[in-house]
């Protein structure tokens, strides 16, 4: 398997644990990653709010770059993945839009040409590599741990866009966690949003949304929260001090992990190579036990 890696802005500019751990574990599972030279923001966090056609152009542009390389895209971010799927659908349905986008792409010497196919990291790990193959790579199983899976909204919504998971019952991340030897119990708040997309507009509501979810996870006795999306991780991992000052001390105190970090640990890779020294949530106790 060979893909053009599309980290997305958040992983590429600050969530280095996401990219480090993906680059560390995926090649060991037979997934080769090629850098997508010349790529840019997909537009979902930027132009989506003000200029839908600007957003669609940015996404189409990245699809055109991958097409030029002759590779399909692997995305690490839920938002980027939704953006790719939505824009591909729109470009197929609206020839006028496609013509406008193609005319503009020609300024940069690019052509949409049907775009590349796009895969979410959960699809690659669960559907293409497979949980059996992952389990076969585990040398240090994660025993006696119950880890809450947080797929993140766009890993299962909207149903109309063929998401990586079932819309009502997203199970892939939980199945992948179980392949490492840990438990991943279901919980009522599993589908709840992290709130991070509105952190750019107003911090307090987003902190309350994320804090409520982390409080529930702590109250239910989970050993940590696992996600794949850099935007969700950024909120849950980095903002716990702010959540505490808003919601009370001791309310929120949960170790947060990228799935690829846990996968790497269970394969015997050092925490530092997986970017775990960059985590801001309380992961030390977990790492000592593992």
């Amino acid at each position: 398997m060979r893909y053009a890696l599309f980290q997305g802005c958040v992983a590429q500019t600050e969530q280095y644990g996401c990219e480090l751990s993906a680059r560390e574990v995926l090649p060991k599972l037979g997934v080769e990653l090629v850098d997508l030279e010349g790529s840019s923001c997909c537009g979902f966090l930027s132009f989506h709010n003000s200029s839908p056609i600007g957003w669609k152009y940015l996404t189409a542009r990245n699809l055109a770059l991958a097409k030029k390389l002759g590779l399909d895209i692997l995305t690490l971010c839920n938002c980027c993945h939704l953006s790719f799927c939505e824009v591909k659908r729109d470009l197929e349905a609206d020839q006028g839009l496609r013509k406008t986008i193609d005319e503009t792409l020609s300024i940069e010497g690019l052509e949409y040409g049907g775009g590349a196919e796009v895969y979410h990291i959960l699809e690659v790990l669960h559907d293409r590599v497979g949980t059996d193959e992952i389990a076969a790579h585990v040398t240090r199983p994660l025993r006696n741990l119950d880890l809450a899976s947080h797929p993140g909204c766009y890993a299962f919504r909207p149903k109309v866009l063929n998401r990586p998971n079932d819309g009502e019952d997203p199970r892939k991340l939980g199945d992948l966690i179980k392949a490492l030897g840990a438990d991943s119990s279901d919980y009522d708040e599993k589908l709840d949003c992290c709130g991070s997309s509105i952190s750019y507009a107003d911090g307090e509501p987003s902190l309350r949304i994320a804090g409520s979810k982390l409080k529930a996870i702590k109250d239910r006795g989970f050993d940590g929260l696992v996600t794949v999306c850099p935007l969700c991780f950024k909120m849950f991992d980095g903002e716990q001090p702010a959540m505490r000052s808003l919601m009370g001390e001791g309310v929120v105190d949960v170790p947060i992990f990228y799935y690829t970090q846990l996968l790497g640990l269970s394969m015997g890779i050092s925490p530092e190579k997986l970017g775990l020294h960059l985590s801001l949530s309380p992961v030390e106790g977990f790492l000592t036990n593992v």
Partner: protein
Amino acid sequence: MHREQTDEFMEEYFGGRWIEADFISLMLQRAMGDLTEESCKQCGKCAVGCAIPIVFEGLPPYKVSTKVQSGEAKELLKSDVIWACTSCLACEERCPADMSPYEVVSVLKNLSARIGYHYPRGYRDLERNVSKFGLIQKPKAVLARSGEHFDREALGLPCLQGPTDIGKFKEALGRLSGMRVVL
């Protein structure tokens, strides 16, 4: 109203004049089909999955659509309510009438941002950065728990350059994002 007339209308709208309710309806129709009194029965299912009414004094999603229908869009366009939507899509998935409050809010956000009524600074900064160099921000040196800072190079991550010809990238993006078309 077809495309040519729409463009004339956009001239007025970009000139700072008030947008007609009809125009908003047109934007909405492009996004999600006809929005009539029959579109939403106000059953409230959309509000069940919405985090906003719980943590913030926002409106339940269905009331956003009813306010647009009753000609109160201008008030919404100037308020924080539309920017409090996390875009989680729970409302859209739960609506038994296949009506999407999320799409309504998205159109209102677009209008509010383009008119210049209300476009939260955080989003504006992301957009400005993408226009300048292709990403929402420059790659940062991040703080680790040890108190040390690490940038991509220190972590052994490849240095990615962004758009190869930034001048052409800006030209292309500027041409489209400034385009006066409906959606």
